[in-house]
Every structure is written in C-alpha cells, then in structure tokens.
C-alpha cells in the first residue's frame, strides 16, 4: 500500500523515495589490511601502524575474517556471493584518509543482490532490495577542539573493516527506512559481525532522499543525508528533508544533488559544501590487491556456521508457538531477547503465549525502568518460568503474580519463596471461600435483594467484596462459581 505525503501548502501529493547506505564496522580483532587492533577508545594513534598510516613502501594484506563476515551477511540476505570480487581505490584527499585513497570495492563487490523483508504497520510485508554490500576500510577521525588553529588527526579507526550495505531506493517513508535499518541492525548482531553500537559509530547510516509527484516515473534529484547516528534521528532527518524538498520545489526551486549533514540539535539538514566540490574519485582496481576469490566450498563452510536468522526464528515462533507476527518480531529483535524467551518456554514446559506476554510485558517494563539489557535481567529465565508455573497451577492469580515478580526482581528470591513469605498463596479451598462469601452475602442484604430482582451488574460488586475479604488471594474461577451458586439462593 503506497503512502504519499500531501503538501500542506498546495495539497499536491508527493511520493518519497529513500535508499540507505549502511556502514557496519565488522567485529574483527585486527584491521582489514593490517594487524593493528580495532578496539575502541585507545589513546590517539596508538593503534595506527605503518600500514594504517600509509607509510611509504607498506602494503595491504586482507583479513580473512572480514571476508567471512561479508559472506555471512550475504548469505543471510539471500544474496549472491561473488566468486571473484575486486578491490578498488577511491581517490580523494582528506586528513583522515592517510593514503589519499580509500581501499573499497567498486565494480565487483563481494555481496550482490540481496533482499530484506520488513513488516509494515498494517501488518503486511514489503521486501527491500539490497543492491550490494562491499568491504572497505574506515577512515580516521579529526578533532577540532582545543588545538587552536589546528585540527588533530587520530588514525586509530583508519583501516577498521567496514561492510557498506547499499539498498535499492525501495523505501517510501521515513518509517519504512527505520524499519529496514532496524532489521539490518538486528541481523548484523545476530550474525555477530558487528556490535551495532551507534554511539561509538560502529553502525552508521546515510540516507538518499528524493521526492517526486505521485504518478511521475522519473526519480527526483536526491540529497544524501550524513551523520545520522540513531534510529530516531534517521526518522527525523528524513522527515525534515522530505518537508524541505517539497517546500523547495513547490516554491519554484530545484533540489540539487548534494551531501547534507543532519544537525540533531536543530533538527535540520544543511549542505556540506566542503565535501561537495569536484568529487572525481578516479576509481581503479587496486594494484596492490589481487582479485578476491571465494569458492563454493568457502561459502558452504560459512553457511554451516550460520545461526538461525531472526526471520526464520520469528516464523518458527508463529508456526510452533502460535505467536502473532508482531510478537514474534519483537521477541526476535535481538538474539539475546529471543534466547531468553526460548529459555523461559523451555523451563516452563510450554505455555508460549503466556511466556511471550510476560517477557514482552512485565520483564520488558522492568528492564526499561532500570535501564537494563535483557542479558542483565534480574529475574532469569528459569526464575520467571517458576513464577509462570504458579500461575498455571493456580497458586497465584495473574494479578498477584505481578506483585511476586516485583519482589523477585528486587530481592532476588524465587517465586515460591516470595509467595510463601508474603502469604500470597491463592485460596483454593472451596469451604473456606464459601465461608467468606456467606459473610459477604449476610452483610449486604439490600444488594442481594437487588441482584435477585434482576440487577445482574451487582455481581461485580460481590466479586469485589469477596476478593477484598480474602486479600485478593481467592482463586477467581472458584470464587465466581461459588458466588453464582450462593446468590442464586
């Protein structure tokens, strides 16, 4: 279902076209072409060796693990793994680019023609094409503060392996772009090829955005948005840019092809003229690196080590566990969350829907409240399963169980310990419940008369009174049954 943007100024309808270029830093120990560490946060230039510095005479030697990681990604998005791919030099001068060229892949990338389905808000699925993913080296960093008239260059990051994942211009809204970005983010972490840390820049995104009048076939001129380092900013930057372009065109202007920087503080994009000027990258095959050959057996070896992928897992949760596509999507959004959920189901010996509700509801809420990750959950999978067992065997009600969980979370005790200590055990003794109900009936003759005269709504009043009298511990089912019988007279 197409989603258009209606101009508030003219009422014209515009179609938005978005393609993303994602840079995922590969989680190798050493750099793509040198044996320096890729660890984040080291003192300036302490992890920049002769190759990273582009010293005269040094040569690049490709990291096998970076290649394996690219293959992992390619297989996970159903792409072709090129049997022969070529490294090329992208030539430009910039202080964070020591050699004056970046080693990248141009005409023959390692991963070609993949696809990534995303779930739309209406519950339908849309497939986003992945044009290519290629290996390249990251650049260093420039510091502009506290050095007077100078900028300082730290080349620790230079040479860190990147997988640049380029989508087709298949997205039609900022929301779709975010959904796609999140899917890729989840996938690279599942595959353990990228830590996905957006603050540290291990997972970065540039967005190519254009608009065209609905019905027009030709794409509009696109702007490339850079520097968007969170999911929220991706959405906001694209939204801003869509508005800017429509407004510009409708007021008689034209969009120019350019790079624009997203300023999150001002929530706007602005032209980066410094990078614009005469981009002529003079790509050519890097003569220092021979063609990269990947055999079918190399691919098979990597395929054998692939984990269950998020979409496969989600499909299994739907078919085997009876979960909704939405729930399955949430639970598979990270490998750790899915593992937790599956551990709860295993320990509980079934009841997947109950498990899912508790993981996505109460547990997620507490994690969120305490700013914790699922791996740091204060209630482990087995402990949660212990609580859920007390719900299924009617020891505690659903409502009381939430109270039990809070105590488990804060005190680190098991469900049974909390139930015992607090005396929260549900009353299931029919005689006891009947005795309490009789007291309630005796104390409220008017309501009894009213109910018996046909005021059915008063039933709720009696349930409330009886529950109150048991301190909420009466088994709700039993209480209902007995109450109905006794009220009937």
């Amino acid at each position: 279902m197409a989603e258009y943007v209606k101009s508030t100024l003219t009422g014209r309808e515009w179609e938005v076209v978005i393609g993303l270029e994602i840079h995922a830093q590969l989680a190798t120990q050493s750099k793509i072409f040198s044996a320096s560490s890729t660890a984040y946060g080291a003192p300036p230039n302490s992890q920049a060796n002769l190759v990273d510095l582009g010293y005269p005479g040094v040569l690049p030697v490709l990291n096998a693990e970076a290649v394996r990681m690219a293959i992992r990604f390619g297989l996970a998005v159903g792409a072709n793994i090129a049997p022969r791919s070529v490294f090329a030099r992208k030539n430009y001068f910039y202080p964070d680019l020591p050699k004056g060229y970046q080693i990248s892949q141009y005409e023959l990338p390692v991963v070609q023609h993949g696809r990534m389905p995303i779930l739309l808000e209406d519950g339908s699925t849309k497939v986003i094409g992945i044009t290519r993913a290629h290996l390249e080296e990251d650049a260093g960093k420039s510091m502009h503060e506290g050095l007077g008239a100078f900028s300082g260059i730290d080349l620790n990051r230079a040479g860190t392996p990147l997988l640049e994942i380029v989508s087709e211009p298949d997205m039609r809204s900022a929301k779709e772009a975010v959904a796609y970005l999140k899917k890729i983010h989840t996938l690279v972490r599942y595959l353990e090829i990228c830590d996905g840390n957006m603050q540290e820049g291990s997972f970065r995104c540039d967005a190519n955005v254009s608009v065209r009048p609905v019905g027009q076939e030709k794409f509009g001129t696109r702007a490339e948005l850079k520097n968007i380092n969170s999911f929220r900013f991706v959405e906001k930057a694209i939204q801003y840019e869509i508005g800017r372009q429509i407004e510009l065109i409708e007021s008689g202007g034209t969009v120019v092809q350019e790079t624009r920087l997203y300023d999150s503080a001002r929530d706007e994009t602005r032209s980066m003229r410094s990078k614009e000027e005469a981009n002529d990258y003079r790509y050519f095959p890097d003569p220092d690196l021979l063609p990269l050959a990947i055999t079918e057996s190399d691919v098979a070896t990597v395929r054998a080590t692939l984990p269950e992928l998020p979409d496969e897992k989600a499909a299994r949760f739907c078919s085997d566990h009876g979960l909704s596509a939405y729930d399955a999507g949430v639970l598979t959004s990270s490998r750790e969350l899915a593992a937790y959920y599956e551990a709860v189901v295993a320990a509980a010996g079934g009841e997947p829907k109950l498990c899912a509700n508790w993981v996505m509801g109460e547990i997620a809420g507490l994690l969120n409240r305490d700013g914790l990750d699922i791996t740091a959950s204060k209630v482990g999978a087995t402990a949660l399963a212990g609580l859920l067992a007390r719900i299924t065997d009617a020891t505690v009600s659903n409502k009381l169980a939430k109270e039990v969980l809070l105590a488990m979370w804060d005190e680190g005790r098991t469900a049974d310990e909390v139930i015992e200590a607090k005396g929260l055990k549900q009353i299931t003794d029919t005689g006891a419940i009947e005795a309490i109900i009789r007291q309630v009936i005796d104390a409220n003759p008017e309501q009894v008369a009213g109910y018996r005269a046909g005021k059915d709504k008063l039933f709720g009043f009696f349930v409330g009174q009886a529950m109150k009298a048991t301190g909420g511990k009466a088994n709700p089912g039993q209480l209902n049954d007995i109450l109905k019988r006794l009220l009937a007279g």
Partner: protein
Amino acid sequence: MSLHTLSVAELAAGLRRKQFSATELAQHFIARCEAHNGLLNGYITFTPERALADAAAADARLASGNAGPLTGIPLAQKDIFCTDGIRTTCGSRMLENFVSPYDATVVERLAAAGTVLLGKTNMDEFAMGSSNETSYYGLVRNPWDTARVPGGSSGGSAAVVAARLAPVATGTDTGGSIRQPAALTGISGIKPTYGRVSRYGMIAFASSLDQAGIMAPSAEDCALFLEAIAGFDPRDSTSVDVPVPAYSAELGQSVKGLRIGVVREFMEGGLDPANAALVRDALQVYASLGAEIVDVSCPNMGMSVPTYYVVAPAECSSNLSRFDGVRFGHRCADPKDLMDLYKRSRGEGFGAEVKRRIMTGTYVLSAGYYDAYYLKAQQVRQLISREFAAAFTQADVLVGPTSPTPAFKLGDKVDDPITMYLNDIYTIGANLAGLPAMSIPCGLLEGLPLGLQLIGPHFAESRLLSAAHAYQQATDWHRRLPAAYA
C-alpha cells in the same frame, strides 16, 4: 690486490679462506667511494660507519663458521628501499628528512645474509626517469664517459657497480629501470618475474609493474644475490608463494637446444644498425654454443610505451597521494589552510617529472577519460601479454637490444619527455606482462657499452641466468671496466 675486480663468488671464497677480512674488503670499497663518488654522485647517502659495523659483524660470523655465501660482501641499496634508521629519500626533496622506522624485506633479507651496506644509491625521483637527471640530489655521471647519463632510474646503482664502488647493488625496474642503466654502464642486471621479490618497503611508483632486482658485473653475481632476496613474503599480497630455485647452482645449464626467439619488432623500425649488429653478434655466440635461433613476432610491441604511459602514471598518481605533508615528508611553511598545506607541500616536494606523471595519471583516471585511456591501456596490456605468451610457445627465451642507443649526453633529452620515454621502448613490454628479463653487456659502440636483453616466461629466472652465464663464459664484455676505474 684489486679486490674490486673480483666476482662475488671470488670475494666470498677469499673471505672464507681468510685472504682478506670483511673489514678490509669494506675499507677497500669505502676508499674507492671516497675517491670517486664526488664526481659520479652515485650515492645519495654514503654509510661508511654502518659498513664497518656490518663488516665487523660479518667477520665475527665468518670466524664462528656460520657465515652464508654473501656474508661480508659489500652492497649498495637503491634509495627506494626503506632502511630502518638510515634516511630514505627516493631521490626526492619530498623525503629529504625521511628516516624510515622499518626495513624493506629486501633490506632485511640482505642484512640477514650478512652483507655490508655501503650506502643508498642515487636514482631518478620516485624512479621516474631514464637518465637519473630527475633526482633532487643531483645528476649521476656515467663512469664510461662522465659527460653522459648512466641511464635510469637506477642510475646510481648502475654507476657505482660499473665503477666498482660497490661489487653489487639493488635496483628496481618499473619500465626498464634496472636493465637500461645496466646496459648503458656495461653491467648485468636482472628484473625478476613480478611477485618473485617482495615489494614490501620498496617505495611504490607503479604497483603492478614495480619489481626489485639485482645489478652486478655478471650473471653469476646476480644469481647469488637474487637467491637471497627472492621468495614469498606474507607482507606483500602480490608476492608469489613459489619455491626459489638455487639460481647459482643451476648456472651450468647448457644452452644447447635452447630456442632463442628474436623478436622481429625489436629488430625492425628505427633500431640503429650498429646496435642491431651487436645483437646479431650475440646471437652468433649463442648459435655457436648450440642454441637454436628462431624468429618470433609480437605485433603490438610498439604499443608498449603508450600503454605504459597510461598505466604507470595512473598508478603513480594514486600511490603518491600519501605524500601530503601530514605524517611524513616535506611540509610547506605556514600553510594558511588545509588546501594550501596539500598543494604547496606537494608542489614544493615533488620535481617536474613527478608532477608531470601525477597529472597525466590524474587525467587518465578522471571522469570521462577512464575508458578511453586507462581501460583501453589495460586491454592493450592484455594483448601484449598474450603475444608474449604466444611467442613463448615457439621460443624459450626472447632476445633483443636493451636500449635504442648507448648512453646519451647529460641534458640532451631533459626537455623532451616523449624522446626520453622512448628509451624504454624495448624494456617496458616485460613489465607490462610481469616477465623476468635481464640485460647483459654485449659490446661497445664508440667506446660506450650496450646491452643484450633476454626475456623469459614467468618464473624462468634460472633459464635467463644460465643463458646469460653461458654467454659470459664465452665472451668477456662483462669484464670490461671503464679505464678510469680499473
């Protein structure tokens, strides 16, 4: 004793028999350098102290009995090889104060073999030139006639070996930079197969063409030294993991039945008849030794120079981008902004020929011209390479002249780049196809040496060296010394 007239094998034998020590040998060459380098200017950096220290270490090794075949042999390194702690200039102002923090693989291997480093030799700036006149450190004179060029780019190495200021020197060859100066100074020089010798630590000019090799009086000397530097290096992705034969032990191979192909295109069109006559004399020698002379043709050979002058500048324009005044190399004074830093550091640091090649390369790679120039050149390169392969089905070794003329006068060609480029008309083909090739002295023309070029299929260094050695057993051109340096 005239130590400088002995071959490497004779020097090694003398050291082992204690006829002289490595220190005495080093002192002999240091004295020759001190006497003659002022005029010849073969060294950019002369390292007598290092030589004496190396010699002392070599003497200790010789005494302890764990010396190798090259222990104690003095050597000059082309100043394109990075040497830890010793300035490496690449003939450029850009690297006037550059002290490499590491050794090139070639340097490391020769040091491990126990050789004695006499110094770093002069060269055309960044190896771009055929006359050694583009060096920032002054021109080099040809020992045979000091008014003439020694050839280039390994002109310093050629001159110091020709004048026996060193018994052997390293060189690099991108389009003929070992073979042409060897020819012009009457010595032997081998450019091995691309990938045979590690390029790690050799400052890149054109990465798909550059190859290190050896320059020495004889093929036998070359064989001994090539053994030491050849072989796989994990630090160079283009280094090939093929075992290194014992070149010196295989030198005795007979040329009987060897099919020697005369490349028709080398002998036709513009080759000076006197030069052609020397090549034919050499073929006579081979025929008399039992070799079979066959005629072969590589129709596109004439396109090798224009092909090279697209490919090499393209690669160099990118390779030399790292010299930006930030991490090493010349930095201009008081840059007003980043652009100024780049442009002036590079504008001041590079000489005219280097700038010319960078600009040529930038142009042929730029948007709109890539297909017409760069891609086309790579296609023609393929054609030339296939023609060589076809020729090697008919012949085991190809021969021809190394250079069109003997050494020309200093200053004669500096103002005309195309004429200068055509000096490499016979040598460039082997670089484009990555083939091993040698030049050996094959006669004198009006008192100036000329070279015979031998080209082999990939990894046929042993065949080339044997063929060259057989010729040198039958002739004495390689023993001739310029009178002033005998």
